[in-house]
């Protein structure tokens, strides 16, 4: 933090600072610690593979599992191709509707990562804004926002999702599930995640706002908003990034849990979690591939994201460097 204060002699310099923060973040320290840890590099590569798989699913998946005209029950419950009765068309076998497991994993990944990403970004933006406001302005606004956060914390994410789902479905009874489920989950997850960001950012803001450099900026007449964005925000990006990584993993898991409770994605367009839930019904009957492959895929993704998060937490913590 010391060099932050030092680097603020004039407001003109401050305007250019965000870029310098970014370049510092991508700078030698972090890059060094990244390449030093082989596990982290591996986790990053795995995550990248997942992302690319999700992004290019329509082009690399052997089949389109969401195209109902391609599905036929004749292909249902086929084992992976290397087992007896397996077909090369369906490398990892098929589920109870004849959907290709590999393709469904890729398409489902798209949904799961999509939900996770949008929810994480929305909640981070919301949480950071409210945290900055609460911390910087303080007073009544602060206690109001923090009380709202308390109410929010009283309801864990799955409860919120259950109710957001019930509410939205009550309001739009004829909405097809595949379109609504996505936004239901995004809203529910955003609502349950923003608090962490808000609390973190608020805490840091309160600390930063009494520092000399912020007071100096105020004295020279910079608007409050500018001060918050340019001077306070960069200092809290580290923890925010760490929370975001953890939440991305958490969002994907929550989505899977919800499909167990009958909320979540419809069986016609299963997400990764919904596919695991569908498959878990076939665990006892010997059709293990329906749940094991998506389960392994999910575990791999969460594992990789969490390892990146771990590394990020250590790397961005100045006291550990």
């Amino acid at each position, binding site marked *: 933090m010391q060099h932050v204060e030092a680097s603020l002699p004039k407001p003109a310099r401050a305007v250019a600072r965000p870029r310098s923060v970014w370049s510092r973040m991508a700078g030698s320290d972090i890059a060094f610690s990244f390449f030093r840890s082989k596990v982290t590099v591996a986790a990053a590569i795995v995550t990248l593979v997942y992302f690319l798989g999700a992004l290019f699913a329509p082009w690399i998946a052997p089949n389109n599992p969401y195209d109902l005209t391609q599905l036929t029950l004749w292909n249902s419950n086929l084992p992976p191709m290397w087992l007896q009765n397996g077909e090369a068309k369906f490398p990892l076998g098929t589920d109870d509707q004849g959907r290709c497991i590999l393709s469904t994993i890729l398409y489902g990944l798209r949904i799961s990562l999509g939900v996770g990403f949008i929810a994480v970004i929305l909640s981070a933006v919301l949480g950071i804004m409210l945290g900055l406001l609460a911390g910087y302005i303080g007073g009544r606004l602060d*206690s109001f926002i923090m*009380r*709202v956060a*308390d*109410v929010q*914390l*009283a*309801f*864990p*994410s*799955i*409860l919120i999702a*259950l*109710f957001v789902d*019930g*509410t*939205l*479905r*009550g*309001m739009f009874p004829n909405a097809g599930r595949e379109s609504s489920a996505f936004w239901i989950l995004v809203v529910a997850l955003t609502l349950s995640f923003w608090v962490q960001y808000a609390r973190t950012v608020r805490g840091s803001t309160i600390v930063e706002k009494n520092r000399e450099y912020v007071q100096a900026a105020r004295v020279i007449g910079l608007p409050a908003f500018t001060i918050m964005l340019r001077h306070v925000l960069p200092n809290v990006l580290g923890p925010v990034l760490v929370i975001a990584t953890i939440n991305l*993993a958490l969002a994907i*898991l929550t989505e*899977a*849990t919800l499909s*167990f*409770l*009958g909320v979540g994605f419809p069986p016609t367009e299963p997400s990764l*979690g919904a596919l*695991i*839930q569908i498959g*878990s019904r076939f*665990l*006892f009957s010997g059709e293990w591939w329906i*749940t094991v492959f998506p*389960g392994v895929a*999910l*575990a*791999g993704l*969460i*594992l990789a994201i*969490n*390892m990146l998060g*771990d590394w990020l*937490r*250590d790397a961005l*913590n100045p*006291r*550990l460097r």
Partner: protein
Amino acid sequence: MLAFVLRRLVQSLYVMLAVGVLAFALFRFVGDPVNQMVGQDTSVEDRDRLRQELGLNDPVPLQFLNYLWRAARFDFGISYQFKQPVMQLIAERFPATMELAVVAMILALVIGIPMGVYTGLYRESWVSKAFLATSLVGISLPTFFIGILLIFVFAVQLNVLPSFGRGQVVDLGFWNTGLLTRSGWLAIIMPAITLGLFQMTLIMRLVRAEMLEIMRMDFIKFARARGLKSRVIYFGHALKNTLVPVITITGLQFGSIIAFAIVTETVFQWPGMGLLFLRAVQTVDIPIMAAYLMLIGLMFVIVNMIVDLLYFAVDPRIRVAAKAAH
């Protein structure tokens, strides 16, 4: 101190009121309870009358006032499905959920803290890496899936643990407990692991991160310089200083444990509040849902308060800060 507690109490009231408003607003949309309360041949007229008498056709503000007035007295009425006072049902189920949650939490702490300390102290050891990796696997799969896998292995394949229920339950009058019987302990093993796994990982990682930081701090170096034994340093100084975040997280996570108990209790047919609540959602048993949500809110408020008070006890700096703030 007293002023602080009073302030928190008033704030808690606001929180509870907001929870009530939210819960009420949501119930308007969760479905029509009437279809779950009558048979298939029941005529539309009878269904309408039922709806009328349940007060579902009253003006919304009137319904809300009724609801608030009763909620304030902890009277949530009669369950639509069970035709019994909701508070009585909740009271019957409460011990099951609490025992499960507490055992899961203790499990998470007892395993998570030592593992965290170890991995924090010996960052590069292979045991640490193994701990970290296995703990991550535990949070990489959805709870229900872990539960079903455990049942599959330990109940079906090995046949050593019961797949459902609480075992033999002893009624103590004010509390029914499964922790006094062998079958009760056997029955709680798998649900507690399923529920506690996530928290365990969380706590372990938290303690590790805190240990990593604290071990670099000056006072530890001083302690070393003074020639204190490692054990005294680690457990007397370092661990004590990691406790504040651990208490916070444990407190905050307790609500999440209770909520995730919905899933665990469903998988293991654990006769607690979570199962009651899930059934209530499925059958639109609004009185039960209302009571459950208010209870969750209340528990959160209480736990939060206890956490705040514990801060006072553990960390002297906060005491000073609190005084300064008021």
